[in-house]
């Protein structure tokens, strides 16, 4: 009997212990054996893909190589960058000019590569500014921001920038509906339903030079536009916008904008809108907005304020916009490579609806409508629906595609990427992401001919992925090989800022077009100095213009005397080098701006207002040669009204005693 009791006791204890320790485990992160080989790019070799990643709240765009995950460049767009002098040099300050004045920061959410015939063409990449609504165009020859245009009547430029198939238009939509610029906006906030409107901007892009111009805007109901995509192929001429807050709430949107079971995807027939505008049906509206352009010939930016924009109210033209019901608070709205299927990702939904462009057209022709939203016809859900992907995961956000008819959707709440087949709406594979993926990017995954091969998941939560760095951690991204049937993680790398979206393109489309130097003969900067004999210092009242050159390893002039308190000194520095990768930097003590970083053949200007009498040294800040430490100079500042003559020189300003001894 005792034995039985003891047996009972021992057995019971062991069972309890087993129960305690055998909790179901996490999906273990097993990386397969050849991940290292797949993601390794040996020293001296190049990556296959350029990856342009939005910096989010850093206001920049970063350029990574795949599959190595190496960071090549952080392009300053909307945020000042003291390292490059962006927003600090006289030439780049106008780029950040807006109708509110010079704005030194913004929030860059999405990037879009320019396209021709639905495929990336390697000419430009576009980025949006969320806070002070603007769109920027960046050249892929120089990897610099060339043009920024502001958007009137807009707030919260989130659904932006998205391009049509041939880069006819860059399109932007508003996240925050507000009263338009030309009406009295001083209204109570709870008159949202009556007074607040959403605006879509269609910015035309010059075919040769990329110059942007707001062709027209569409005034829409006051919903929040989240993301959008252009149609391709058969659906070219249409644009699709995901809308949430169709409840039109103005407070506690967390609850009040999540009430309705279905919001909408708004289908916009922009070709029709274009026709109406051509026929003069748009109305001209007064609105102030800035347009800034940087030239690589004059190495300077110009900024102009425009005063007028053309607006079409979609309520008056009922064949321009149609609403398609979509569950629930949709975020992503993505068009598959054939242009037939439109995938809605409702971030609070537990299924993925896929709409058919052909069915939408049939429904419009047959007027299969289910009432209207603020005057815009609502197409019946079933009439537009191709099918639903059932129980794919929790919180779908964004979808991109490969060349084999598969779609890849990111799931924020269940922290995974799910691969599903578009035709039969079946889930094929799923992989966890670490942690909580936002957007993902497939190489050319939004074009007519996706490259596929790599998928990057951009996550919102990092926690324990890397060595910790205090409470603030970088964002994490995971690279997946999607060339096979199953997705395989091959790299986990941190990213700058907060990537919201990214685009990736084969390196060969961009690599060969790179500008290595600026030809000094073509330099048309108003203060260029083409050669040391032309260097000089010129006084115009209290403005002093220093025409300076730099070359390895000296400035000319490097000794300047005769500057006075109260002067505004402009150092116009021309880098005379014509060789690859020989920039020079410039800094002067007491300047309250930043350094200059000048590329070969370029001219850049730093403004300096001397604040005390005495000697200020200046020097080259970018290591340029064995004698970089010797590349320096001095400026003498005398009191206001002094009669020290304005002199400048390099090499000849010798001490007096030695001169006498030499004679």
């Amino acid at each position: 009997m005792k034995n039985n009791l003891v047996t009972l006791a021992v057995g019971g204890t062991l069972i309890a212990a087993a129960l305690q320790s055998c909790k179901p485990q996490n999906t273990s992160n097993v990386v397969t054996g050849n991940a290292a080989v797949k993601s390794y790019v040996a020293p001296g070799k190049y990556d296959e893909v350029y990856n342009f990643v939005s910096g989010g709240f850093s206001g920049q765009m970063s350029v990574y190589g795949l599959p190595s995950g190496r960071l090549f460049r952080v392009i300053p767009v909307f945020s000042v960058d003291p390292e490059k002098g962006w927003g600090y040099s006289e030439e780049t300050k106008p780029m950040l000019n807006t109708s509110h004045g010079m704005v030194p920061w913004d929030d860059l959410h999405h990037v879009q590569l320019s396209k021709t015939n639905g495929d990336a063409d390697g000419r430009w990449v576009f980025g949006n500014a969320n806070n002070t609504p603007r769109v920027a165009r960046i050249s892929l020859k120089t990897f610099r921001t060339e043009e920024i245009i502001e958007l009137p009547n807009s707030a919260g430029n989130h659904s932006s920038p998205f391009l049509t198939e041939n880069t006819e238009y860059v399109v932007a939509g508003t996240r925050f509906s507000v009263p338009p610029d030309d009406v009295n906006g001083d209204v109570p906030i709870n008159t949202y339903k009556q007074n607040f409107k959403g605006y879509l901007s269609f910015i035309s892009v010059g075919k040769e030079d990329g110059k942007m111009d707001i062709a027209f805007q569409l005034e829409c109901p006051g919903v929040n536009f989240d993301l959008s995509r252009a149609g391709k192929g058969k659906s070219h001429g249409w644009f699709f916008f995901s809308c949430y807050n169709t409840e039109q709430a103005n407070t506690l949107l967390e609850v009040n904008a999540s009430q309705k079971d279905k919001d909408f995807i708004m289908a916009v027939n922009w070709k029709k809108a274009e026709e109406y505008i051509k026929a003069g049906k748009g109305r001209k509206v007064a609105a102030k907005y800035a347009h800034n352009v940087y030239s690589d010939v004059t190495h300077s930016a110009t900024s102009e304020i425009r005063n007028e924009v053309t607006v079409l109210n979609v309520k008056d033209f009922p064949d321009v916009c149609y609403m398609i019901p979509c569950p629930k608070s949709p975020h992503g709205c993505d068009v598959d490579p054939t242009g037939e299927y439109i995938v809605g990702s409702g971030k609070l939904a537990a299924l993925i609806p896929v709409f058919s462009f052909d069915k939408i057209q049939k429904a419009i022709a047959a007027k299969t409508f289910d009432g209207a939203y603020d005057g815009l016809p609502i197409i019946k859900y079933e009439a537009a629906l191709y099918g639903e992907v059932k129980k794919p995961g929790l919180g779908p956000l964004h979808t991109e595609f490969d060349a084999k008819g598969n779609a890849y959707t990111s799931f924020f709440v269940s922290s995974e990427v799910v691969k599903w087949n578009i035709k039969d709406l079946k889930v094929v594979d799923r992989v966890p992401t670490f942690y909580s993926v936002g957007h993902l990017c497939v190489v050319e995954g939004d074009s007519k001919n996706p490259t596929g091969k790599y998928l990057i998941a951009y996550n919102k939560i990092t926690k324990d992925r890397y060595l910790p760095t205090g409470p603030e951690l970088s964002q994490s991204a995971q690279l997946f090989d999607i060339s096979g049937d199953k997705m395989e993680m091959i790299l986990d790398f941190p990213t700058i800022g907060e990537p919201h979206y990214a685009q990736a393109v084969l390196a060969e489309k961009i690599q060969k077009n790179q500008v290595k130097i600026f030809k000094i003969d073509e330099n048309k900067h108003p203060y260029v100095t083409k050669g040391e004999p032309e260097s000089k210092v010129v006084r115009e009242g209290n403005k002093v213009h220093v025409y300076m050159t730099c070359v390895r390893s000296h400035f000319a002039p490097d000794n300047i005397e005769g500057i006075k308190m109260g002067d505004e000194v402009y150092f116009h520095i021309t880098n005379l080098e014509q060789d690859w990768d020989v920039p020079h930097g410039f800094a002067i003590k007491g300047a309250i701006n930043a350094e200059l970083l000048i590329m070969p053949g370029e001219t850049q200007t730093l403004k300096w207002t001397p604040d005390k009498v005495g000697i200020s040294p200046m020097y080259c800040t970018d290591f340029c040669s064995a004698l970089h430490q010797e590349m320096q100079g001095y400026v003498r500042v005398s009191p206001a009204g002094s009669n020290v003559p304005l002199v400048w020189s390099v090499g000849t300003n010798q001490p007096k005693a030695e001169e006498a001894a030499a004679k």
Partner: protein
Amino acid sequence: MKNLIIISSFAVSALLISCGGEEKKSTETQATTTQEQPQAAAPAPESYDPKRGEGKWTAESLTLGTKLDEAKATAGETTAGVKCGSCHKYTEEKLVGPGWKGVTTRRTGEWIMNFITNPDPMIDKDPEAQAMLELCLVRMPNQSLTDDEARQLLEFMRKNDGLK
């Protein structure tokens, strides 16, 4: 006693089996070095001709007249002011690079043309260029000269050395 052993061993093995999937093992293998060797740095030195240098100019392809070509020389002087004058004086005095006086007597025309259009490989191979590098401590940069510019510069150097 027997029962106890049987039950204990059963329970222990059940414990081990069910709790086996606990560790997160990463099964990475070392990356195999399958990449090719980088290109060989320099070809055999025997193939380098110190009189001609390295580049597309040869004694045959270069026509040097016995009289100075005034137009070319003037153009060359302008280009020299922009692209060369920061580092070279036209006298014998060294600035960053050596002074130009007498260069056309020390070097052949084609050597000069090749050097100013293709300095990097020549600095690696030419013994005289390497000797100069030790003095100047700066590798002469490639100033992206066109063929015309290079020819004009050579003509200016000949003028500087007294040719009329």
